């Protein structure tokens, strides 16, 4: 008899000790009569339970977590291998854990279920159905694939929310220039926003879905070369992606003759080098070309003159990894999820000071309060929530009265906020909003590409002005000085918004202004409480 166990090899699971748990399991079952087959899967995205150990039983997969090395012995002696419930870490059938059961998983439906580098596992779980349908559509007309994407309503999941089908149409219609006659598919895997990890999780848990999405994109617009531009901060994702790509070549899903169709698509991973700005599509293209990641002026759009001057689709990981299910189940199926012009699902990422952090894929239209309370279960420290930053470091800090806004692109835009890449970072009441506003500017000084003045100089001056405001407050300077500095900061923000070349400079003022608007009482007050003391006190309990 052999029992199959699953333990994730995703970055977060490993960061919480999964590798050591794996070693302990192998070591402690070596002499046992019961053989154990340990599969390193991807994470289900319930990071608060990592490392999450699953056991395959006749009833389904039973979960235990979070497991530490010290728990392995008691798990084994108390019948974990048969899915026994008599252990404090017993969580029941994984599928029934409310955090997972309440989600609407489309893009992430295989995450944590399959062995990420097994192409057989991928195929058994409906992998390449979308590609096969795409090849059928292609036999009639290339336009059919692009039409499916248009009908689905899919918008770029990287943050800008531009309709994916329209981008594809532009590339399909564009004529390559020069001798090479090449078009490109570039996957933006430079997930630099703090509080976001859905790209990483997807690449580590289900890399073939990204590969499949890129092949379909290539077929749709006539591009035969793809690049995944991956940030250097994600070495585990690189390892898994490269293994998956090698397998896809061996099985003829990549290369000169995809599944005997006569169509060709090559794919390569390229590693970035620690520059947030390279998440901006034109900067990313410069970097791929082997240059400094300086932003390009638009137009021309990358869809017309992109990588090496050729028509290029630049799509985010999640956008591309969502393509297979659209092609597999049809555009209408995907379109039926969501609200208004925000169709389908978004993988929300719950992070920061949150009790149950992780990935929550839901249709657009739910509210922030629902996600944070139902899934997140409040703050990690147990203190009340003070602010929630949505959409990464360039997103607004939202006060309590805005937590009931529907999570859709237009509703967020209406309150001067952004949904971005779906990152949700929770802060408890120990946070100093002044420090956060200052950090937004400081981050921009560190990460600006330097090409345009409003971003490069504006952010430097922004840090200075906020420092002066803090000093004026501490010296109890006359009110006129505070008012003047306040006006100066507003002016500076407006200059950055209107004058910057790309989203880095034009969005940095969003968090700053949100603090000035919604936390005015708190802005420039001296409440930099010791966050860490609280956290440490909790850890020691």
């Amino acid at each position: 008899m052999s029992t199959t166990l699953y333990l994730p090899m995703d970055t977060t699971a490993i960061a919480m000790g999964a590798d050591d748990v794996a070693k302990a399991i192998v070591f402690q079952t070596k002499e046992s009569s019961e053989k154990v087959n340990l599969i390193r899967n991807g994470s289900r995205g319930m990071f608060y339970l990592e490392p999450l150990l699953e056991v395959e039983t006749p009833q389904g997969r039973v979960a235990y977590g979070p497991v530490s090395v010290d728990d392995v012995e008691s798990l084994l002696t108390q019948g974990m291998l048969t899915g026994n419930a008599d252990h404090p870490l017993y969580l029941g059938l994984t599928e029934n854990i409310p955090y997972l059961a309440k989600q609407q998983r489309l893009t992430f439906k295989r995450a944590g279920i399959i062995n990420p580098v097994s192409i057989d596992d991928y195929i058994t779980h409906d992998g390449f159905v979308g590609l096969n349908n795409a090849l059928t559509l292609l036999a009639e007309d290339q336009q059919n694939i692009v039409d499916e994407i248009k009908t689905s309503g899919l918008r770029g999941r990287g943050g800008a929310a531009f309709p994916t089908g329209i981008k594809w149409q532009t590339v399909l219609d564009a004529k390559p220039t020069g001798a090479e006659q090449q078009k490109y598919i570039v996957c933006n895997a430079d997930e630099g926003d703090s509080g976001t990890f859905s790209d990483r999780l997807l690449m580590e848990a289900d890399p073939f879905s990204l590969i499949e999405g890129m092949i379909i994109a290539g077929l749709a617009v006539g591009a035969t070369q793809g690049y995944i531009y991956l940030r250097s901060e994600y070495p585990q994702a690189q390892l898994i992606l490269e293994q998956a790509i090698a397998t896809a070549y061996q099985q003829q899903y990549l290369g000169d003759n995809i599944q005997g169709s006569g169509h060709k698509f090559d794919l390569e991973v390229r590693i970035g080098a620690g520059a947030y700005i390279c998440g901006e599509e034109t900067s990313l293209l410069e970097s791929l070309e082997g240059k400094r990641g300086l932003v390009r002026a638009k137009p021309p759009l990358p869809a017309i003159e992109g990588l090496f001057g050729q028509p290029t689709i630049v799509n985010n990981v999640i956008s591309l990894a969502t393509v297979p299910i659209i092609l597999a189940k049809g555009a209408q199926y995907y379109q039926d999820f969501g609200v208004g012009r925000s169709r389908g699902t978004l993988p929300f990422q719950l992070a920061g000071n949150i009790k149950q952090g992780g990935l929550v894929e839901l249709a657009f239209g739910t509210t922030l309060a629902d996600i944070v309370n139902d899934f997140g279960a409040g703050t990690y420290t147990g203190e009340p929530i003070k602010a929630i930053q949505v959409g990464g470091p360039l997103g607004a800090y939202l006060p309590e009265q805005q937590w009931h806004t529907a999570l859709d692109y237009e509703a967020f835009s209406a309150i001067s906020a952004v949904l971005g890449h779906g990152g949700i970072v929770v802060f408890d009441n120990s946070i100093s909003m002044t420090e956060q506003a200052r950090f937004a500017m400081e981050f921009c000084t560190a990460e600006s590409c330097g090409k345009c003045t409003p971003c490069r100089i504006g952010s430097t001056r922004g840090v200075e002005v906020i420092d002066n405001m803090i000093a004026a407050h501490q010296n109890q300077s006359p009110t006129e000085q505070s008012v003047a500095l306040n006006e100066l900061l507003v002016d500076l923000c407006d200059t950055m918004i209107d004058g910057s070349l790309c989203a880095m400079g034009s969005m940095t003022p969003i968090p700053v202004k949100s603090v000035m608007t919604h936390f005015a009482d708190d802005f420039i007050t001296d409440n930099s409480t010791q966050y860490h003391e609280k956290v440490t006190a909790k850890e020691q309990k």
Partner: protein
Amino acid sequence: MNTNAKAQSPEQTIKNLVDNKKDLPGALLPILHDIQHQFGFIPKSALAIIAQGLQQTEAEIYGVITFYAHFHLEQPGRHTIEICRGEACQAMGSKALEQAVKNQLGIDYGQTSANKNFTLEPVYCLGNCACSPSIKVGVKTYGRMTSSKFSELTETLSLYQLNLGEEL
């Protein structure tokens, strides 16, 4: 013992690495990664070799190396420790952690400890935001970091280096 192969000079190694990839479209970043992987940093002597291989100027190569936070022109310590400064980590006390780490190692960002064991760098998001605060040592990320866990970790890293000569 291999007696017939003379140890290759660093310059020859760099030239080989350049030659391996110079025909790739957009070859510079892959080449720089290969060199840094080999030496732990990019030796100054590499600039002229890369420039010649790619038919670019040394100034262009230098501009690219210094644009990216990941590339280094100086030899770092045995372990590079990156502390995440992203907002999710800040929400869980990373500012206090940063201070504690700097105090323990006696160095600031961009510096290497006197015993050459540790180099400290800031990083803006490791993608481990649900289990913050995070640090990364080499290729491995550690979640829910505290100053006491960090002391244990650095002790282990020093021991491994001194006694076993292994990388963790």
